[in-house]
């Protein structure tokens, strides 16, 4: 029986692990950038409900940084798994 690839078997590890790793780094990047750029008007603080995910608000922008970094790390892990699979599971 053909052994499934590392990416296939590690799909959910890639998704959860990648998002967790990336969102951690995105949180720091987002917070740094927003502290550098400064704040807008009072209504832009981005705390209430969906406002926290509106990228034009202070909080929402950082949350979007977390999500973008999360997806980026999933892609990085996917590429890494694919390359390791090619090295380790040669047909």
């Amino acid at each position: 029986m053909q052994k499934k690839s590392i990416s296939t078997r590690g799909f959910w590890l890639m998704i959860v692990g990648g998002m967790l790793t990336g969102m951690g780094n995105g949180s720091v990047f987002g917070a740094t950038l927003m502290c550098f750029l400064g704040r807008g008007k009072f209504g832009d603080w981005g705390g209430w409900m969906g406002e926290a995910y509106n990228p034009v608000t202070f909080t929402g922008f950082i949350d979007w940084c977390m999500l973008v970094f999360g997806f980026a790390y999933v892609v990085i892990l996917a590429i890494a798994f694919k390359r390791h699979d090619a090295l380790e599971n040669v047909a």
Partner: protein
Amino acid sequence: MLKYLMAKNEDIPSGSAAVYFGFSAITWFVIGTGLGAFNAAKLAFPDFVTGLEFLSFGHMRQVHVHAVIFGWISQAFAMAMMYITPALGNTKLWSEKLGIWNVILWNIGLSLGLTVLWFGMTSGREYSDFPWFIDLYIATFIFIPLGINVWMTIINRRTQGIYTTNWFFAAATFMVIIVFIVGNLPEFFHLTGLTEAYLTWWFAHNVLGLWITPVAAAIAYYTIPKVTGNPLYSHRIGHLHFWSVVVFYSTPAAHHLMSAPLPEWLKSFASVEGVLILVPAIAFVSNILLTMQGKWNMFVENLEVRFTVTGCLMAIPLNMQGGFQQTRAINWYIHGTGWIVAHAHLALLGFSTFLEVAAVYLGLQTILKRKLYSLTLGNIHFWLLLIGFTTYWVSMTIAGLIQGAGKIYEVPYIDVVIAEHPYMIARWIGGSLVFTGNCFWLYNMWMTARTGTVIPEGRMPHELAYER
């Protein structure tokens, strides 16, 4: 277990102390995360269990923190030291009897300490909340005997060199004693004001930096080469990791007090040192991931490797956050928010716990010579821990960002409380998943000891994982 207390050392089976430490650690993990889930429920549902002072959040939080740090994390470290130190020195543990006494005295002292915290007797200093007599007990009857056993085992080794893991074990057991005695000086000598504040955070920072972080990393330096069969990628990078931990991690306590009236030069120095923590972090993560070369199949197949590598992945955001969140510009925003709570859990429940869990799984199977009772339960444990922790961490980080923004925008406090309520519920769900996973784990390891298939001589537990 009690029969070994008065037995001759040579009559005690090899590995006994590690087994008792292992089961004790798992039990404390169940208790500690159960208390954490209870506390999270109180934040999510403010009317949940009210009227009893000893079950109030202020009391329960201290009990949770100390049960997890000194029950789960530190006892899992002790378990790992009891079997890894002799294995790497090609010898036996110096004294199984001392190890058994250590387990007993540890549990007595910890139970006493948690009881006094529960009933409100506390120093009131975060992370060093235990009153002075418990601190002295911990140093004298917990860490000094542990250190003696580790150092004597290394001195009596039958190998020429000392492997990286044992460097860390020997140094960390020494450093934690110093941290305990010096860090608690305010309690012994009634020091107050800034001196007390600084020493409180010197203690809290170094319990993390000179005990939890290096020992967790040392465990990974053993687990990954042992299970994968690959040699460590670089001992020299391991030594860079070791010395950079000792130099950079021991000094930046003031970065916990960036808003306090400490000397500005001290805060700036601490902040720069804080960023330099990235040196050991990068050395560690790269060393472990490069050791995995050619064995990435095991990341998806093998439980111990999966736990360890996932823990190493968590070390990346942990140290990126840790390195930069303490700089003045970012600390101003996130200080005193749920972000810090999330970060602390990324260190303790994420990074270090995942590495320790792997060591306990591997150690108990190896010493008991029993195959894991149920791999399915092991996988369920992994996923409940990972999904539960991720839910907890994401919700708390976002709640922290909302709190931080609320702080700088001067939003009324009650509005911030209302805004973060959904995240408190998510936090409780995440914590409950972790607690449930640990209940499965305790059952699985208990059944492994009772009915697990015997591992033939010369085989490793993971080699048999998929054999019936």
